[in-house]
């Protein structure tokens, strides 16, 4: 049932609207709206019940194990959420003078410092609103750097074939052409191909390490040297930072600029698709180009650094300073954990992934990179099962839902067929991992003994498998009054 379908003409929540609402007589009639928008007319109870019921149709970390590779679905501490939701923070206008913004500015400044320590890079701008905007900022900074030196020939960006879709999309948004670099059979970047690809047109490379294949790129120093030698710069996609906190730093690997997904490594909630936050960190070379505003500190007060202070900045990426509330959350999370806690994150995330990987291999599942350590995540492939039983990774993913476990990332990275990218995160217990292993084993058994059960899954969710083709072909993107209730 859609909220529109429980609407009744004339229903209104009088306590939620202001009492006195005289007509706006001073606005010329031709500028006024003639017909009101079609919104639902529902009572407060109907709204609460409708959206409470809807929420119950979601899987979430708070209710399920959610080992979605590359997404770092860890526990989002409730204390962080509570403290970031204090009235004083919520009611603070972004354009408040700094005299009345010190609480927020201090928190942002501290986070800049923390991220700088963790990444081994010298300066941070918190303004990007998600990983992809952080990528944009970083690649735009590389572009601005080359242009600032009059180096206009650098029109190409290198991206490994294993890269996340945002990487090539970002480089294109920044005006670059993409050169894709293949992966070798161990999951590392193919060094020969890389060497063959670089040249005077090379503006830079975007790299994740550990990569989206769940392995640490062992030749990173060589890659860095190869790129730097031809005058290119290195962008680090920080989506997998959870794997290396306190173990190694992108700055030391030779990266010039990177983003950090606060909604992954720093445990801010994913909110059903955001908001996130993707601060960008840069070394000395790229620091002048960081997006504004950033926060400065004179030992006494915190203050904004804007275009006046940073004339080479690539500029502003949002109306204010990005997803401030997420920045606040990341600050609280990091300071709750402290340096020891932050180091433990990568340790236990890695322990969980390697344990799962080892146990699944023992149980007969096929690893994509059996000779490698898992980072905080790893890949299994159902290529064999697809061939022998006609069971796809998608089938198994859907069947997992029936067992109350969210599916791992499927069909990414694209170069491993029928794959699951599995990221358990450090906040899941051994019991939860063992349960997951048992469920996967059960499903494999089902696939052999009653394949239709798996191919027709899910069976126990609010809907059965959805017709995505119909969705795309017969676009139905908004509700119209004319549609019959039965259709919904």
């Amino acid at each position, binding site marked *: 049932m859609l909220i529109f379908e429980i609407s009744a003409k004339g229903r209104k929540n009088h306590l939620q609207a202001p009492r006195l609402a005289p007509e706006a007589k001073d606005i010329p009639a031709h500028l006024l709206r003639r017909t009101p928008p079609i919104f639902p007319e529902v009572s407060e109870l109907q*709204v609460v019940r409708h959206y409470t019921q809807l929420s119950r149709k979601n899987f979430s970390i708070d209710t399920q194990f959610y080992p979605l590779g590359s997404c770092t679905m860890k526990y989002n501490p409730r204390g962080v959420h509570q403290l970031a939701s204090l009235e004083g923070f919520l009611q603070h206008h972004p354009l408040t003078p700094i005299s009345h913004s010190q609480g927020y500015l201090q928190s942002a400044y501290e986070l800049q410092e923390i991220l700088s320590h963790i990444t081994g890079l010298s300066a941070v701008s918190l303004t990007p*609103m998600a990983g992809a905007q952080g990528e944009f900022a970083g690649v735009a900074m590389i572009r601005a750097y080359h242009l600032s030196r009059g180096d206009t020939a650098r029109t190409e960006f290198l991206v490994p074939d294993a890269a996340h879709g945002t990487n090539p999309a970002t480089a294109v948004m920044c005006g670059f052409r993409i050169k894709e670099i293949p992966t070798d059979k161990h999951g590392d970047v193919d060094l020969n191909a890389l060497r063959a690809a670089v040249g005077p047109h090379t503006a830079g490379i975007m790299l994740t390490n550990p990569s989206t294949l769940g392995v640490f790129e062992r030749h990173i120093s060589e890659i860095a040297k190869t790129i730097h030698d031809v005058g290119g710069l290195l962008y680090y996609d920080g989506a997998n930072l959870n794997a290396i906190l306190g173990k190694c730093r992108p700055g030391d690997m030779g990266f010039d600029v990177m983003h950090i997904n606060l909604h992954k490594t720093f445990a801010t909630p*994913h909110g059903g698709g955001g908001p996130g936050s993707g601060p960008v960190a840069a070394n000395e070379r790229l620091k002048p180009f960081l997006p504004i505003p950033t926060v400065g500190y004179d030992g006494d007060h915190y203050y904004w650094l804007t275009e006046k202070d940073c004339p080479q900045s690539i*500029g502003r990426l*949002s109306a204010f300073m990005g997803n401030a509330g997420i920045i606040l959350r990341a600050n609280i999370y990091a300071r709750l*954990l402290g340096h020891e806690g932050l180091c433990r994150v990568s340790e236990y995330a890695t322990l969980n992934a390697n344990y799962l990987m080892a146990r699944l291999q023992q149980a007969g599942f096929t690893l994509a990179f059996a000779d490698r350590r898992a980072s905080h995540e790893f890949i299994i492939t159902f290529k064999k099962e697809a061939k022998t039983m006609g069971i796809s990774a998608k089938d198994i993913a859907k069947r997992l839902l029936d067992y109350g476990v969210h599916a791992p990332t499927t069909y990414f990275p694209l170069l491993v067929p029928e794959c699951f990218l599995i990221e358990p995160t450090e906040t899941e217990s051994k019991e939860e991992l063992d349960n997951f292993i048992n469920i996967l084993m059960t499903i494999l058994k089902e696939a052999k003994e009653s394949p239709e059960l798996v191919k027709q899954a899910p069976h126990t969710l*609010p809907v059965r498998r959805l017709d995505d083709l119909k969705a795309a072909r017969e676009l139905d993107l908004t509700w119209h009054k004319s549609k019959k209730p039965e259709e919904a």
Partner: protein
Amino acid sequence: MPFIPHTEDDVKTMLHAIGVNSIEDLFDEIPQDLRINNLNPIAPGLTEMAMGRDMKARAERDAGLACFVGAGAYEHHIPAAVWQITGRGEFLTAYTPYQAEASQGTLQLLYEYQSMMANLMGLEVSNASLYDGASALAEAVLMAVRANTHAKEPRILIAGNLHPHYRQTIEALVRPQGIILETLPYNDTTGCLETSRPKIDNGDIAAVVIAQPNFFGGIEEVDGITDWAHQHLALVIAVVNPIAMALLKEPGAWGERGADIVCGEGQPLGIPLASGGPYFGFLCTKMEYVRQMPGRLIGRTVDQNGNPGFSLTLQAREQHIRRAKATSNICTNQGLAVTAATIYMSLLGASGLADVAKASHDHSSTLCKALTALPGMRLRFNSPCFHEFVIECPCTAKALIHTVLKDNILAGLDLSLMSPELDRCLLICVTETKTAQDINAYVQAIKRALQHLTSSLTVED
């Protein structure tokens, strides 16, 4: 260990299953010269209790001002139900709904959001959100360039009375793709766009960007501009305040054919000010341009039993499928803020939203009248306004703002932000949240401040 559930026994068993001796061994593929062993420069951790004390002190430090600043972020009453429901774990801690069957809650909600938002704007399609108003406008510009097949060059005409931060954001986000940004000037008396428009040929311009209301709160004569743009084969991009759209003509009804792309800041719809975010950007368009849209779209479909259900659709526009050829690089968007906005719109309904708009307008008119009655204070622009207006003061806006800050009033925005010659101008916003007493307290504080500032020689002036 904070947020880590492993017992010592667990660790032993797990290491054994892996076949290593220590957790440290699991990092053995990292070259030794890259290893670090701690993050000691970062402080030790705090308990939740200690953190609570610390953050409460910070929150209090930033609190307590009566806020009369708008300028892109607006204080409205947010019904308690909005965030109490939005904050439920199942909304808060879910990922993007890739597994549709396990995400029908978020998906249906987003479909309802798309329906309401498209309807509010008078257009056919809405996406499921972009980052914020400013970056949504940049995406709208890129989209217009892709969609307008008549344009000879990627040239965009941008209203000169657009929020300056929006203008800066477009510059940063679209310039790398070689898009040319030019300014459509505004009239110094009305604050609205000049009625005499530049001479252009068909195809010279890919799109025209109009803000309604404009940065000064002024209400534009949108019909004429829209038709003019369309006559020259330019698309019209409207940047609007969604609350204003309950009162002002919706972009889909502008001129003969309506605006082509509408975007803006969703924050007024139930999202707290919160130092600037998270908010969300909305973007609506006509069905003919849907394949050029950036961002996620939710479609209604059926499951294998023929029952209705919802899923992400037209994903071939998106980076995770189309990679380098995607309509945008956006991935994570602002889902939770949209959740709140959907609940907000459902609670208010169309008539409640109109009440909010009318009350805000009424309150701001009241304050405006009271202020212009004070000696030396005059309305800077003479167009009708929506809930925000510009007052020219007998002193710098900066001095006035800092003086009344002592009364815990944030008087408005110093328009020298927009341009140095507006340094005596104060952009003031009043919404439904301000009572008659609040408005009176404001007027009295300004009165005192003016007496003080104009009688004495002040440093700033």
